[in-house]
């Protein structure tokens, strides 16, 4: 899913696109340094660790020696990333050539973090205050519920009985790009909307957060503050209560929005109010890096094109409905079938066969995931074949030329079209020509000059 991957990774690109001053300000916070370290590709992490206690700039050639020849492309990706995020600063030494050294603020903070650990700006609240904390299980159910409700409202499936507290203007911001407004029918999911639904939860979360942050400037909130608060949030402990009075006003408003997404749970006592981060929040920094998805799947695909999904979630049912026909729903099972009609429906909506197959593979039940391949080959082959069915005909806009006065003019026209790369078909016997539309104007001028 190349396009979708770019969307998910864009959070780090957004961080990298901050101005130099803002980035350096971000690096004053130890936890941001840690979160950004975790988001780097593995080779870049290794480089940072190795240069962590070295003060002098290290020549680029020396760093290249650390990598085997077939790792050079990864080396270049890592170095580019580090320069983009301003972790590596480039200097040119006359003898050694290009040298790299670590950003001093980043380096100092990381050194301190490794030697003595870090202390969060806020401590968890004492449980003796009569606070009744929800158990981890309850918290996870709450988070999942909130997130699904939000997603259902986002795609406007019309089944959102419980509306989230997000204002409609905020919703419109999120829906931008995912839904298109058609006057007659009402909003429909766009191609990116479908791809969004097939992404895994963390990627979806980062997409929403990215939209939220890009919108922040319009609300006069500094994106750098938001980014630092979010990254800091991922270092809190799931299930612990933190007092709201340790936050700034901006952070408090942000928290209210995050509660609607299911990232935190807000609770109020007699005197204080506090927030409890859920697993969605603390897992934020895990998904920053480009690593593989690690979660329990629920879909079993059989060779007779029947699919069984062990799930009770409405959202997952909607997602499966995108490309399969739901046969019936049992209390813990959704039975569906992948048919030609359901797939054609999906392809019409812009979903590709690769996306469907990747979705099935990533979400396959652990019992199926053990098998190699986890999805039967006849199913994957058939999905691809059905997709190529729709692509048998390739259409190009063209113009048809007929009734040439003489053979020479016809030959001249053919050569001209060939030179311009626009010749699609010719018939020398009857002197007919089909030329791409882009070349049509030049063709007309040429024929006029030929005629005179």
């Amino acid at each position, binding site marked *: 899913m190349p396009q979708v991957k770019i969307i998910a990774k864009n959070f780090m690109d957004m961080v990298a696109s901050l101005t130099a001053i803002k980035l350096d300000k971000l690096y004053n916070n130890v936890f941001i340094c840690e979160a950004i370290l975790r988001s780097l590709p593995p080779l870049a992490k290794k480089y940072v660790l190795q240069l962590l206690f*070295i003060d002098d700039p290290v020549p680029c050639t020396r760093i290249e020696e650390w990598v085997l020849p077939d790792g050079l492309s990864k080396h270049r990706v890592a170095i580019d990333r580090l320069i983009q995020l301003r972790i590596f600063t480039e200097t040119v030494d006359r003898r050694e050539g290009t040298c790299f050294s670590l950003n001093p603020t980043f380096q100092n903070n990381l050194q301190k973090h490794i030697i003595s650990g870090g202390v969060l700006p806020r401590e968890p609240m004492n449980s003796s205050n009569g606070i009744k904390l929800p158990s981890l299980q309850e918290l996870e159910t709450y988070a999942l519920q909130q997130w699904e409700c939000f997603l259902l409202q986002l795609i406007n499936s019309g089944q959102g009985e419980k509306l989230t507290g997000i204002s409609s203007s905020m919703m419109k911001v999120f829906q931008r790009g995912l839904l298109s407004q058609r006057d007659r029918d009402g909003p429909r999911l766009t191609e990116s909307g479908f791809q969004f639904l097939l992404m895994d939860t963390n990627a979806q979360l980062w997409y929403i957060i990215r939209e939220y942050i890009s919108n922040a400037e319009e609300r006069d909130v500094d994106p750098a503050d938001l980014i630092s608060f979010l990254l800091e949030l991922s270092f809190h402990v799931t299930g612990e209560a933190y007092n709201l009075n340790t936050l700034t006003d901006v952070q408090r408003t942000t928290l209210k929005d995050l509660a609607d997404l299911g990232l935190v749970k807000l609770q109020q006592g007699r005197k204080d109010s506090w927030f409890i981060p859920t697993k969605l929040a603390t897992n934020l920094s895990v998904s920053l890096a480009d690593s593989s998805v690690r979660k329990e799947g629920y879909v079993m695909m059989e060779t007779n094109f029947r699919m069984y999904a062990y799930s009770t979630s409405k959202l997952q049912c909607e997602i499966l409905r995108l490309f399969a026909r739901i046969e019936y729903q049992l209390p813990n099972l959704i039975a569906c079938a992948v048919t030609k009609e359901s797939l054609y429906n999906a392809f019409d909506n812009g979903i590709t066969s690769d996306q469907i197959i990747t979705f099935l593979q990533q979400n396959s039940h652990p019992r199926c995931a053990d098998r190699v391949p986890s999805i039967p080959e006849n199913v994957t082959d058939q999905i691809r074949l059905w997709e190529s069915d729709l692509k048998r005909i390739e259409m190009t806009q063209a113009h048809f030329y007929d009734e040439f006065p003489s053979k020479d003019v016809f030959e001249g026209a053919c050569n001209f079209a060939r030179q311009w790369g626009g010749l699609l078909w010719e018939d020398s016997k009857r002197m007919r020509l089909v030329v791409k539309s882009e070349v049509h104007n030049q063709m007309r001028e040429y024929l006029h000059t030929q005629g005179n």
Partner: protein
Amino acid sequence: MATVASKLYSDDVSLLVLLLDTNPLFWSNRSTTFSQFLSHVLAFLNAVLGLNQLNRVVVIATGYCSCDYIYDSSLTLSGNSESGRTGMPALFGSLLEKLEDFIDKDEELIKEQEHDERIASSLLSGSLSMALCYIQRIFRSGHLHPQPRILCLQGSPDGPEQYVAVMNSIFSAQRLMVPIDSCYIGTQNSAFLQQASYITGGVHHAPKQLDGLFQFLTTIFATDLHTRSFVQLPKPVGVDFRASSVFGQSKLDGASTVSDKKRKAPDS
């Protein structure tokens, strides 16, 4: 490393089982004290935990005649709430406490035993077996487990009476496809460790200067299994001596910078 069946690693989440040599007979007459050594090791563990949120670390202490689990990073995350307990690299308070208890118990056991004939080796076979038991449990816990590897930080010489047990552990690790890295900080060579790393596809290195131990640890042994396929690491002895030239001169300068900073850190 032709003897090892290779495994494809998709990400860099790792479980590091560290076998720490606490043999008092070895540490009693070294120039570097055990606490200096420990500060390097703890910083290294913090670095490993900091690389990825899902990374885990288990420390097993190898004593003279006993070994025990000292620290498990996943255990400190769950459990009841205590002050100072967070999901980030902490100051390893519980680790240090348990280590002290273990060393005291080990010394008591030494006094009870007759040990004139035995070489002052540490119980490597015992801790290797404990590590492999833990890893086997991880393998059986389901699909979503980190990739395990073992790191032996050893200084004591090899004890020939443990030969069979150690070789058994090495072959078990080979079958489980768990690499055993070894970092030898003693004076003589350790044939056990070299063999362990060679057979299981791990990395063996014997740093000359203990002052720069942190730098050696993070450069070589912090590399996760996924990255090892495209990074230069010390090759087995006798095949390639590139190990010393990979770091080059500037690294040794860097190592002395490390030592200055590391010596200052515990006091400040």
